[in-house]
């Protein structure tokens, strides 16, 4: 899962640099192979399942609701990671996919569909939108891309007002009543947790698989150097479009879950603020692995709805915290964790070799 990092600054924390090697005795010729090849799926999956099972018994009431929101945001952040972390396209319009999913679900509220079907429809619509965005924005990169996606998101936001009759403008569409799923009443907080965390886990797993696949590695290649990638015969266009569609699909799922939880959708879901928030979640959590977005989402949700709630100083504190994360904590929380683990390992090996 280590391959997801955004262009790491090569000069830092490079475990195989001459100096680091000087410190830690090289663990033999197989070291690189082990690093590149080990499949850590099982431990991650186990951890995920344990968490999903444990959380509802550890948390109740508002805390469980917050955790549920965090997981949904985490899935949303994961969709941003696909574009940003995997193919290096930092989108500032990610909320468009989220909002599309949410609005699709909201507009289907009177059809009494199975929630999972709604998820698929929402994700599919968002994916189609992603395809359109890919066609429009797929040629740009860097700051142009960020701005272009920001603009496209803003246009979508405007459409909600222009077509008042369909989208109800600022008022949004509220009143989703989630249908029971396999006889499970989703009005129940615990049930909703299992439902949304389960969906998130399944799709996180799928993404994990994709990331380790040939296509996943092509994403990294395209991110690192699109010109070189094309010279190898991989189609940058295809790779970017695929990433877009995956991102849109997952973002759409998160949107559907969110509107099911909040019982509706409003233009705020498609706003630049939302797009910005999700990037923050990604950054807070760190891009080095797929837990990052979830950790980031949890921290962000907690900060914004709990810690600094109820006074107008909240924005100051949130801003300060985010600044600290962006400026000081490169690689986010998961980056810190990984660095800590690496340091610990290094300590252990040096201690061992010393004795």
């Amino acid at each position, binding site marked *: 899962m280590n391959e997801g990092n955004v262009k790491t*600054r090569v*000069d830092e*924390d*490079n475990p195989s*640099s*001459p*100096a*680091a090697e000087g410190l830690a005795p090289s663990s033999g010729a197989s070291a690189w192979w082990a690093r590149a090849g080990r499949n850590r799926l099982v431990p991650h999956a186990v951890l995920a399942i344990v968490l999903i099972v444990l959380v509802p018994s550890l948390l109740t009431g508002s805390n469980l609701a917050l955790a549920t929101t965090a997981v949904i945001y985490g899935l949303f952040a994961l969709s941003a990671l696909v574009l940003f972390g995997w193919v290096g396209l930092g989108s500032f319009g990610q909320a468009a996919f989220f909002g599309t999913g949410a609005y699709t679900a909201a507009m289907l509220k009177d059809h009494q569909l199975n929630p999972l079907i709604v998820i698929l429809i929402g994700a599919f619509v968002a994916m189609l939108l992603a395809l359109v965005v890919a066609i429009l924005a797929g040629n740009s990169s860097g700051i142009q891309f960020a701005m272009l996606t920001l603009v496209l998101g803003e246009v979508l936001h405007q459409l909600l007002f222009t077509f008042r009759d369909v989208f109800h403008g600022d008022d949004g569409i509220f009143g989703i009543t989630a249908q029971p799923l396999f006889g499970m009443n989703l009005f129940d907080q615990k049930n909703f947790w299992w439902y949304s965390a389960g969906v998130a886990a399944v799709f996180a797993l799928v993404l994990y698989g994709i990331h380790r696949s040939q296509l996943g590695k092509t994403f990294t290649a395209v991110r690192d150097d699109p010109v070189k990638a094309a010279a190898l015969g991989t189609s940058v266009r295809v790779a970017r479009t695929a990433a877009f569609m995956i991102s849109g699909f997952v973002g759409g799922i998160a949107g559907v879950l969110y509107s099911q939880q909040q019982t509706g959708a409003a233009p705020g879901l498609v706003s630049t603020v939302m797009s910005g928030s999700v990037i923050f979640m990604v950054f807070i959590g760190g891009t080095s692995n797929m837990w990052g977005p979830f950790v980031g989402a949890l921290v962000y949700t907690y900060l914004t709805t709990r810690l600094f709630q109820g006074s107008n100083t909240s924005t100051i504190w949130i801003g300060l915290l985010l600044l600290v994360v962006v400026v000081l904590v490169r690689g986010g929380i998961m980056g810190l964790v990984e660095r800590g683990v690496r340091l610990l390992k290094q300590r252990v090996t040096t201690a061992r070799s010393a004795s």
Partner: protein
Amino acid sequence: MSTDALVLDDVTLTYGSATAVFGLSLTVGAGEAVGILGRNGAGKTTTLRGILGSGVRRKGSIRYFGEEIGGMRADQVARKGIGWVPDDRRIYTTLTVRENLLLASRERSGPAKEAVDEAVAAVPLVEKLLPRKGVQLSGGEQQAVAIARAVVGRPKVLLLDEPAEGLAPIIVESLQQSVIELSRSGMTILIAEQNLNFVLGATQRVCVLDSGREVLTCSSEEFGNSPELQNQHLAISLENHGKRR
């Protein structure tokens, strides 16, 4: 003492947590031309960057005509009179070649136009490129402009990182000539270069690095005349290669 242009004393250079040059000591007399040799990754580029203080962390003492510059920022060092030709050229692509040169000329070094003319004389290839934009240059042309730009600033010490790379043989020849002349005119020159002939012809002394450590310093003549030395220090013998990392 202060007649030495550069005195590096136990200088260690690191990128983040990775050390690239270990405890290097090197003295370059005023007006001397010294070559830095070594295999890929030996630390040549890093050494030059270290003197300038650009992009690499320094430990140890670096004195420039007796003055400690080891803690200074690159721009301060540059203003003291150290010019640099980076290995990746770093031409301003949206500016014309003339503007590139003018940027490097400092008021202190006299009228800008004269300085440019002088630099063009040192690297004649540049003359016809003056009105072109940086993007409109081929790799070798950029190299030539990078050298001219360093000369424009009338440095007392010139750091050349692989100046001959990518240049046509005929240009390499004339460049060597120019370097010799600059050196004669009193400029102190440090060249990191793979092209052995170029270095040996242009310098009086060479310093060979290996894996970030100095392994040999001797006169260029001696080094040039000794295939054994060359073989020992520059060739990648297979067993050596195996242990390298």
